[in-house]
């Protein structure tokens, strides 16, 4: 049935187009227009005019939408380096928008100004080394400036994390995130992918590293405002990518190759709720590397606390192993003792 309808539609459209085509051809013949003759006719002027029109409509829509929807497309920024990258972003944006407009003034109005006229001749102007040189050098200088500014920021972002920091381990898996904190000693224990099972889903290696004994794995990420946070990122099955849009943070999670990213959050969740006027606002962690059918659903909530609140929250967490006491036995008793567990 569907197929019949489809065929019918195609047929009807085909006949319609065929008729239009014949009419167009016949009018051409009726006007005694030679095939492919490059005389001015109405179409040439209309096409030229449309470019001019498109300039105003296009840039009008661009300007109007950009101005009226800023609160939608500009994500409030909540990290120290994010302020700097945003600055460079809008700076670059201003430059390229200017270039875009200038180029299109020439591109869309030349058709109007120089459309075919029988009695005019194009201007013979095959080359001019000075002009070529100028427009090689100017973009080169502008780009060099952007590169240098970018370098400074990039270099600072990718410095090793400060000693004084909060460490959070983030692991991507199909299709969720799991996080782990170092617990009382603040140190995250070693893991081994061979230790992973249905319960110990992060593969904590209790046998060889008693530091795992106090690690806890909350359902939300909590981080303190104003302190450097180091994300230690890994993946256990396929590639994933940690994306924290409000913090301007992104780093791939790669099986077999731990990665990291550090940043300093500048606004607590509460402050952000006030700023955006949205009582339900939450920072979110998303995945930006295709990882399978649930890629679009890898969400985790991130909470930025005042440092005191963070400390309180941290102290309240129960070590993972206390809820899964069987795994405690894996650690050699003497190791446990030596480490005061």
């Amino acid at each position, binding site marked *: 049935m569907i197929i019949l309808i489809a065929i019918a539609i195609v047929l009807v459209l085909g006949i319609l187009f065929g008729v239009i085509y014949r009419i167009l051809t016949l009018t051409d013949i009726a006007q005694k227009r030679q095939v492919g003759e490059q005389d001015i006719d109405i179409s040439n002027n209309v096409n030229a005019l449309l470019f001019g029109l498109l300039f105003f409509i296009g840039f009008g829509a661009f300007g109007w939408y950009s101005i009226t929807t800023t609160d939608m497309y500009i994500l409030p920024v909540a990290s120290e380096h994010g302020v700097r990258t945003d600055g460079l972003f809008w700076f670059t944006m201003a430059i390229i928008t200017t270039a875009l407009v200038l180029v299109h003034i020439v591109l869309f109005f030349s058709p109007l100004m120089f459309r075919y006229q029988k009695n005019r001749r194009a201007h013979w102007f095959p080359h001019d080394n000075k002009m070529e040189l100028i427009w090689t050098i100017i973009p080169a200088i502008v780009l060099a400036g952007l590169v240098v500014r970018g370098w400074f920021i990039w270099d600072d972002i990718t410095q090793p994390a400060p000693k004084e920091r909060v460490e959070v381990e983030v692991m991507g898996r199909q299709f969720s995130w799991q996080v782990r904190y170092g617990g009382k000693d603040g140190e995250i224990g070693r893991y081994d992918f061979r230790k992973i099972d249905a319960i110990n889903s992060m593969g904590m290696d209790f046998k060889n590293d008693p530091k795992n004994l106090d690690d806890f794995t909350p359902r939300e990420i909590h981080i303190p405002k104003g302190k450097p946070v180091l994300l230690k990122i890994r993946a256990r099955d396929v590639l994933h990518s940690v994306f924290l849009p409000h913090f301007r943070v992104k780093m791939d999670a790669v099986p077999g*190759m731990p990665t990291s990213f550090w940043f300093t959050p500048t606004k607590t969740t509460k402050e952000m709720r006030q700023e955006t006027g949205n009582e339900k606002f939450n920072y979110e962690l998303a995945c930006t590397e295709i990882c399978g059918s649930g890629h679009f659903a890898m969400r985790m909530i991130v909470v930025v606390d005042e440092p005191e609140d963070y400390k309180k929250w941290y102290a309240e967490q129960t070590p993972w192993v206390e809820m899964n006491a069987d795994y405690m036995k894996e650690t050699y008793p003497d190791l446990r003792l030596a480490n005061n567990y």
Partner: protein
Amino acid sequence: METIDTNLSKTQETESSEIHHSHEEEHHGNFWTKYIFSYDHKTIAKQYLISGIFWAIIGGSMSVIFRLQLGFPDADLTFLKPLFGRWITEAGKLDQEFYLALVTMHGTIMVFFVLTAGLSGTFSNFLIPLQIGARDMASGFMNMLSYWFFFAASVVMFASLFIETGPASGSWVAYPPLSALPQAMSGSGLGMTLWLVSMALFIVSTLLGGINYITTVVNLRTKGMSFSKLPLTIWAFFLTAIIGLLSFPVLLSAALLLIFDRSFGTSFYLSDIYIGGEALMNTGGSPILYQHLFWFLGHPEVYIVLLPALGITSEVIATNSRKPIFGYTAMILSMLGIAFLSFIVWAHHMFVTGMNPFLGSVFMFLTLIIAVPSAVKTFNYLTTLWRGNLVFTPAMLFSIGLVSLFVSGGLTGIILGNAALDIQLHDTYFVVAHFHLVMGAASFFGMLAGVYHWFPKMFGRMINEKLGYVHFWMTFVGIYAVFFPMHYVGIAGFPRRYYTWTNFDTFNIFTDLNMFISAAAIITVSAQFIFVFNFFYSIFFGRKAPKNPWKSNTLEWTTPINLGHGNWVGPIPTVYRWPYDYSKTGAKEDFIPQTVPYSETPESNTKRENELAKQEDTFYKK
């Protein structure tokens, strides 16, 4: 460029093939050798073109279907069930994995099958012999093989759409481990195997074609056709072929290692993986290695699809501006620059993979350098239009459209190439907007410009220009309506390859804008059927074409209207001048074909050209 050619020796070969061919002219062969396994570059070009159109329809329709999902997430798609079967769920929704399969196939088809095979394959084949003055490609047999390898690749890719577990769905870049492990998603099973087989066949096809293009340009130019008199189209095809020849083998090696990992238990790309309830034994491999190998092709590939389009545009803009292309030498130099630089920027796709940050700095620098030759090209196009006498054929409209899209898309490259800014924008819709404009739409426009411009030469008839105008304006406005809004969505952080964004508060906005984009996409894709109709109808019922409908200078317009195998009846014409003598000061007509000697145009010659005119006797008539 006015110097008389020093490699006249090259022409000897042409002479001998002339004799050879005039014999062949008689025995045309049967249907099979004439239309199917043809050696004739023109027939092979048409085969590529029609295959390209077929794939473009499929790839375009796929984008409509996944745009339906993104723009109208609540729509009931049950009516698609007869076509897609269980890929539409009971609730009338697109299956999540099917969404990814569609995106993957869309990307693969558009990049490789439409814009590499359909564009390069069509126009390199069609134009190289015609514009350099050769009877055919250096090896007609290899050329035929090249098409049929492509055909085989097409058959395998097409077949993979119909298998039980679905086609490859790990995106067109096919990063392992996702693409290596059938446990990770069902598309990584047989579908991925077929994808790899198809790509391997495709690469063989590209290499066979590329070797031929290069050899032909180097060896078979007609008398007088020095490199400095080549039309920019040929320069573009020539450089494209070289880039392809150097980069596609690397993709093949990446694919081979992936095949080993998938089927023979090696660990090139795999390490420390726990999946499907078990820890795999692979250790020591690196998924990042694949990305380096892939993008070593992947980035040059962008220019493989773009350069031919820019070459076509140069030719069309010069002809229809009735004005020489501005800065012919600068155009060649910038293409050389782009070709070279395209090999040393690949890691800008990998800023946030955990790659060494210092490498990031280096690649950021190199990437921004490549913007310079691109800017030079743009300014040269603008200057060519300036004070021209512009004739708006459909081809000219698409070329102007290309310049606009190239600029709009290229400028955002300056942002993405900046590692510090790419952190936020990587893998968001900002990237989707960027590459669709600069590579997808721009190359697509180049391809359409080429079809409109050389249609009379291909089929001996004119394509209807009024329908061409309608097609252009709908497509041009439509493309901007689809891809420009994606910048906002991208700046807001929306990740790409997402089935839906409603799971996130941050991304639960822009529903209207996404609806608008999808509606625009449907209209834009539909408008292409005006072209499809115009194309096929005009092949049979278009008005008969004159010999040189656009009053163009290049050699192809000196051939008979309906040209047979061997292209020219009688000897191949000799070339005396560059291809851009449009509206030359003092000349009678506003164009002087390449075959007109300087000695016949004393009224428009410069001093230097007058001298060359004197030497013409000794150089050309031996």
